[in-house]
């Protein structure tokens, strides 16, 4: 097998891993949260069972649902899975990174969101429209903050190619202050983008408080399964992005078996650590008021912006 062929195979394996492992991450977080609340909690594999259950159920459609409503779950799942396939998980050098850089990845996520918002409004319920309105309002602030924090990293790497950025981060010989700012910003955005406490609560039943969940209230069966799966992939995507860009140590630089296996172990360990941290955070925090979400997101943006300033002041030419 030629080298480029091997790389493509590994790239596909990596994408498949992201898609298949995503429910596991959700399960680990749920379990941790339950233990932190002194509950026993559902088994870690429960999210897989839920997906299986939903795939086996009938998908009900509202009478006035158009093709947008029916297509959205597939678009959502595909774009999210595609976005996940460009993030280096255990191997730095990815052929797919040449096709889609970090801006394309953000655009894929934005496309998914656009479709979801349309679907929320498509069936004409008050909650769908409300959720779509909230989601778009907040995403207008979350996306710039996310891109800005990525740009801090690409400024150092002189590229928006994720593989190059990770490689650059891997070979930094000392910690850069700008990276700390970018990390803080990305962590904040990741919480908001994935609808976690204190911004949104994925496990709430209160329609009026929902952001993400309000848009998908009318979905059922395989449609709902795809949407939930896509959300889980998105969460794993953000976790992996944070790990690969900020704590990439252990990731394989060559497609040999040993470094790749070691990298897998490292990656898994780091994802679990992030999951535990998220569970602790979600247990300790209450949701903030809706009108404070813009403040939260602008804080993230300002942090990313400061990271960029710090990069120019302290790091360029130093």
């Amino acid at each position, binding site marked *: 097998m030629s080298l480029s062929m091997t790389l493509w195979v590994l790239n596909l394996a990596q994408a498949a891993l992201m898609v298949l492992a995503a429910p596991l991450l959700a399960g680990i977080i749920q379990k941790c949260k339950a233990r932190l609340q002194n509950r026993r909690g559902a088994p870690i594999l429960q999210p897989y069972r839920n997906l299986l259950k939903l795939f086996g159920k009938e998908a009900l459609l509202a009478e006035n649902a158009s093709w947008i409503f029916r297509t959205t779950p597939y678009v959502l799942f595909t774009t999210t899975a595609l976005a996940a396939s460009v993030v280096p998980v255990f191997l730095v050098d990815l052929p797919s990174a040449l096709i889609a850089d970090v801006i394309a990845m953000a655009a894929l996520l934005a496309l998914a969101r656009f479709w979801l918002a349309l679907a929320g409004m498509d069936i004409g319920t008050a909650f769908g429209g409300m959720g779509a309105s909230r989601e778009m309002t907040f995403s207008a602030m979350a996306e710039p903050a996310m891109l800005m924090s990525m740009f801090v990293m690409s400024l150092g790497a002189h590229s928006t190619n994720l593989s190059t950025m990770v490689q650059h981060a891997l070979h930094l010989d000392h910690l850069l202050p700008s990276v700390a700012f970018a990390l803080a910003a990305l962590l904040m955005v990741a919480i908001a983008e994935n609808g976690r406490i204190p911004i949104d609560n994925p496990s709430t039943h209160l329609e009026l408080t929902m952001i993400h969940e309000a848009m998908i209230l009318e979905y059922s069966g395989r449609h709902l399964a795809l949407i939930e799966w896509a959300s889980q992939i998105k969460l794993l995507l953000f976790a992996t992005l944070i790990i690969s860009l900020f704590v990439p140590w252990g990731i394989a630089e060559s497609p040999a078996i040993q470094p790749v296996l070691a990298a897998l172990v490292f990656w898994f360990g780091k994802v679990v650590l992030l999951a535990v941290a998220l569970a602790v955070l*979600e247990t300790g925090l*209450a949701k903030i*008021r809706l009108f404070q979400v813009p403040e939260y997101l602008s804080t993230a943006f300002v942090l990313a912006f400061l990271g960029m300033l710090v990069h120019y002041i302290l790091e360029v030419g130093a």
Partner: protein
Amino acid sequence: MTVNTWFAEKMGNHGIHSTYLEDHHPAHMPCLEIRLIDWSSAAQLARQLDMRFTALWAAEGGKHDEHLRYAYMVFAHPKHRHVMLRAALRENEPAVSSISEHFIAAMRMERVIQEMFAIEVSGIPDPRPWLKHEHWPADAHPLCGDFAADTVMPRCPGEYPFIKAEGSGVYEIPVGPVHAGIIEPGHFRFLAVGEHILNLEQRLGYTHKGIEKRLQGQQAEQAIHLASRASGDMTVAFGWAFARAVEAAAGVVIPARASALRAILCERERMANHIGDIGAICNDASFAFMHAQMQRLREDMARLHKQLFGHRLLMDLIKPGGVSVDLNAEQNLLLRQQTSALAIEVESLRSIYADHSGMQERVIGSGPVSLEEAISIGMTGYAGRASGIYVDERVEEAYPPYDRLNVRIPEGRDGDVATRVWVRFEEIAESARLIETLLGDLPDDDLCSAWQAPDAGVSGLACIESWRGEIVCWVRFGNQGRIDRCTLHDPSEVNWLGLELAVRHVPLPDFPLNNKSFNCSYSGNDL
């Protein structure tokens, strides 16, 4: 006991003639018959005397006046207690004038007598049906004597005219009656602009069980089972209210041990519900830790109830004349130990809640109801106490055993979610103290007095402080000890209005938090 003539004299001074009805008990809560034309001015006088409105209902005549229909209303004064007013309606086209301009909380009850009894309420600002849904035939009036309880009503298509708002950007959000969580059914119609609530309109009446109709003709011993299910989470208080009303009518005095046991059960019910609700309020702000802890404590309580009394929610332990359960020394100790342990645990959880800045940020200042607003609608229970209305029947009426206990009422002022939670924390501690006092000094006598139903036509009124607030129960007996008419009034009937007021100042996503802080009963509102 001497007859309470205070309000009769006051009315006399204002030219309203009244007659004291002999066959109503107790005498310190008299029933006064007034003329129909004085109906509204009597309510006005009550407002001027700073009395609070507690209930309004209608009944067909009893033994000697079957052909007549009567309207009843109850007012209460902190010092001079309750007074019940009754007016006979015209035989043909019965009508009564609305008192909602003096007591806005009366309006929904007026809507109920309008639809259930075919009594026209003249001058009512909102004549729409309330509990009777639009799908019921317009000419069906279920509480009228000629309406058979087993009538199967056809479904008639109809539409409820909700309040509308116009203007750019105004939209409606229908919520319920089927909710995502496990709660009672109720419909909320929000008019909103963006995230701001312009108006909340409640549409209840999805839990109609026909309790008032079904109670008619039952013996008190059977009826108490149904009456105590008016709202399942207040079963002790409803059972007690019903028992006290029939005991007042029958002149039965219950043993001191029975009343102490009733109070112990009632305070345990108060603790359990406050504990569960505080957890649920925190959960509505996504602070799930408190929810899990409070659920655990509530479950501990339910399990001990099952062990000691045979029922997790304390149902069917109160009967006319007394109680049907007892505590031996060992059980007494068990209950005391758990109550004091609970109180300590709740206090430690309270400090976590109070120190949690994110949680405090959500509750402080959210959904305030001012004292003026609270008085205007006559809010009761913890919601009233949070806004500055320190009314508590355990202190004012001081029915046994509270006459020998010094119940301390938490005095809130701000009327927001934080204050409502604060009041409930305080009440948990106070209830624990009361339970320990009662258990430490449990009178040693019978569990039950002999029950003997009174003569036909005799009626009794009782007011009990449930955990939600004041329950009013009125029972009139017919022949052979059968209940002729019974009405139960849940404090939620008034407090639902408080919620409508509270959410005018909050953004949409804060509604669930406010709703839970009131936690009104859907079932108790809709017998």
